[in-house]
């Protein structure tokens, strides 16, 4: 603590001179490339989880850089809030959405990626070039003292600003948070209640009150039949097919086969007397075997 403030005093005395110390330079040249690598890795990695982890590397480096620049509060906030909370939420969402879901790499608009890269690199070059030029003759400020709010440093100075100059902005963030929470609720909430759940007794009573088409359960498939496939219709006592037992789905999908099977059940094709031969003809044998294999 004491050495820190002594260093601050020394730096303050140096005033406008070049004040980048050796330690700071080393920290910068270690952390700067790491932060850059994190950013690039985030963009170029395909896997979304890896991408988020690269971003963590970048953010941690920034956090440490802030601390080196005698802004410990900002540095720790960066690490705790961004790396700790926000990125973990990010990862939660990624895990929920499925970590295997990768971006589609199909170009919807032709030449879009090339143009985007061109303009992106152009904008970055412009910005970096302009900033590099404009920040050459920067007069070094006296480093803020983290423990003296009067000299604008640390949590104390920030707290003072929040409750004086930016009081209204600070209170306005309350509205922002309410809106965010409300929006989350609206987008995610599903009302699954469809009235109170009915017990078995209620259902029986409802059946006999006539709320359903029939009182008994549906006829099961294959009654009085030689096969027990769903595709085999139930037969009524007089030998006719019970229409309720015909599955709509099967009816619509494999009509030819069903008709053949019905014919066989009704005995109209007596030549196939083998009960296990569910086939109407020689040509369908192949497809039937395939079906069985599935």
């Amino acid at each position: 603590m004491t050495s820190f403030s002594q260093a601050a005093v020394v730096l303050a005395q140096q005033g406008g001179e070049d004040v980048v110390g050796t330690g700071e330079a080393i920290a910068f040249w270690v952390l700067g490339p790491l932060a850059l690598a994190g950013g690039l890795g985030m963009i170029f990695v395909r896997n979304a989880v890896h991408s988020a982890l690269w971003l963590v590397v970048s953010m941690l480096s920034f956090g440490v850089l802030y601390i080196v620049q005698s802004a410990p509060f900002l540095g720790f906030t960066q690490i705790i809030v961004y790396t700790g909370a926000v990125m973990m939420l990010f990862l939660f969402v990624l895990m929920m959405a499925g970590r295997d879901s990768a971006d589609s790499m199909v170009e919807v608009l032709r030449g879009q990626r090339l143009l985007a890269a061109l303009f992106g690199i152009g904008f970055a070059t412009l910005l970096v070039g302009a900033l590099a030029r404009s920040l050459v003759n920067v007069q070094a400020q006296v480093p803020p003292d983290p423990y003296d709010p009067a000299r604008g440093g640390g949590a104390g100075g920030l707290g003072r600003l929040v409750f004086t100059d930016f009081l209204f902005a600070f209170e306005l963030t309350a509205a922002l948070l309410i809106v965010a929470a409300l929006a989350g609720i609206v987008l995610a909430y599903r009302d699954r209640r469809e009235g109170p759940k009915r017990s078995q007794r209620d259902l029986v009573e409802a059946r006999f009150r006539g709320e359903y088409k029939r009182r008994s359960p549906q006829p099961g498939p294959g009654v009085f039949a030689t096969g027990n496939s769903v595709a085999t219709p139930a037969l009524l006592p007089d030998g006719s097919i019970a229409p309720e037992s015909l599955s709509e789905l099967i009816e619509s999908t494999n009509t030819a086969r069903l008709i053949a099977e019905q014919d066989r059940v009704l005995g109209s094709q007596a030549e196939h007397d083998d009960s296990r031969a569910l086939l109407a003809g020689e040509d369908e044998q192949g497809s039937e075997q395939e079906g069985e294999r599935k």
Partner: protein
Amino acid sequence: MPQQFLAQGEQLQVPAIDFAAVLPILIVFGAASIGVLLEAFLPKHQRWSSQIALSLTGIVGAGIALAAYISDAPEGGITTFMAQGATTGAIAVDTPALFLWGTLLALGLASLLMIGDRSLEPGGAFISQAGLQSGGLQTREQANVTGMQTEIFPLTLFALGGMMTFVAANDLLTMFIALEVLSLPLYLMAGLARRRRLLSQEAAVKYFLLGAFASAFFLYGVALLYGYAGSVKLAEIAAATAGSSASDTLLYAGIGLVVVGLLFKGSVGPFHTWTPDVYQGAPTPVTGFMAACTKVAAFGGMLRVLTVAFEPASWEWEVPLWLIAVISMAIGAIFGLTQRDLKRMIAYSSIAHAGFLVVGAMTLTEDGLSSTLFYLLAYGFTTIAVFGVISLVRDANGEATDLSSWAGLAKRSPLVAGVFTFLLLALAGIPLTSGFIGKFAVFSAALADGNAALVVIALVASAVAAFFYLRVVVLMYFSEPAAEGPAVTVPGAFTTAAITLGTAATLVLGIVPAFALNWASAGGFVP
């Protein structure tokens, strides 16, 4: 060390707050917060009526508070939330701010009436459960469930409060947070349409992504300007422009990025790409709210930033803004010609109008300010009424926004066709409408400021744009109606009130504009 800090025993001085001046904002935010509580504690069937009552009370109450403050407002305006020892506060309450607050509250009232309407579609224009996946069976059932997501009312109020803060914010940080407060509810509201869910959700996602980019631009600009001026306060940025040792590159890049963020919100020129899709996909009442109120807020903020903070640097940004105004007018007028969908057409019309507004906003004279304020007022009312009328013409699939289904509308419903014609003429800027007075005021202010070339281009663009408004008029009056065309729904009290308010304001501001023009020119921005 921490003990030392505590031992100093320093007391923070609470900033001076003029509660009477900011009461309208506080009332709107208060009503919004109470609305959230109602949402949490009321049973479903009571929510709609109580939310409507609360929101209307909130807006009208804010209007009364505003009127009471205006009646004895200090000359020249004040800034409040001023910290001890600072020269300016965070919120500026001056004539433009008061004028824009009044405009926003009136337009917000009309929008709220349209949002709350349940007569055109059983249950209102909003889905009853936004969380369901679109395209599924449940969503199709939802279209017939009466009931809506009543969170829309507090969200509208939050957006309105954000807009009111935005036009009065006196530093860029407050402005940024207000920008987010006004944008977030709009992103969500765009995705809540009852019908055509996929279009609506696409609109919401598009608006959100592009809006997030614009916010990032704005924030980056704020950071660069802070690097230049050492402060985010508008007045101190202006002071730094006069004499700062920092490189001007920071200033120019900062101005550029901040202005790009603002232009995006105002749907100007090359930053307009979200506008047609979002206007088309969003539920029509929300489109009306967005088109009218967001534009007022964006240009209100832009006027303040350009005048208060960037005026000393005006030589640097005049040429780019000149170009942007031309591009915006050209895009709006030319692409508007090719549209087959009415909502998209009005969206391109709003891009053209944004170009006209930039002409006014870059004219940093007293007339430039007052005429731009008047234009915003006039355009807002006309647009809300236009979207109100669009929501009336419906077929089995909801609103019939395709141009062909409007053919021969005058034979089915002369009144609706007449009102719509009047509103389109106002958008085109024909005399006896507010649109004419607005354009006349803005163009004469720009002419007086020596921008003759820009005014000529603007006149040409107005003429081109007038063509596509008149095409709709011709279609309504001189075409045979389609055999299975849409029906004109008889609106309930709420939508009728909103359309009447918008149309009446368009007429009154077109015939006796003096009172509004006088109010708009009563004073400038507080430095």
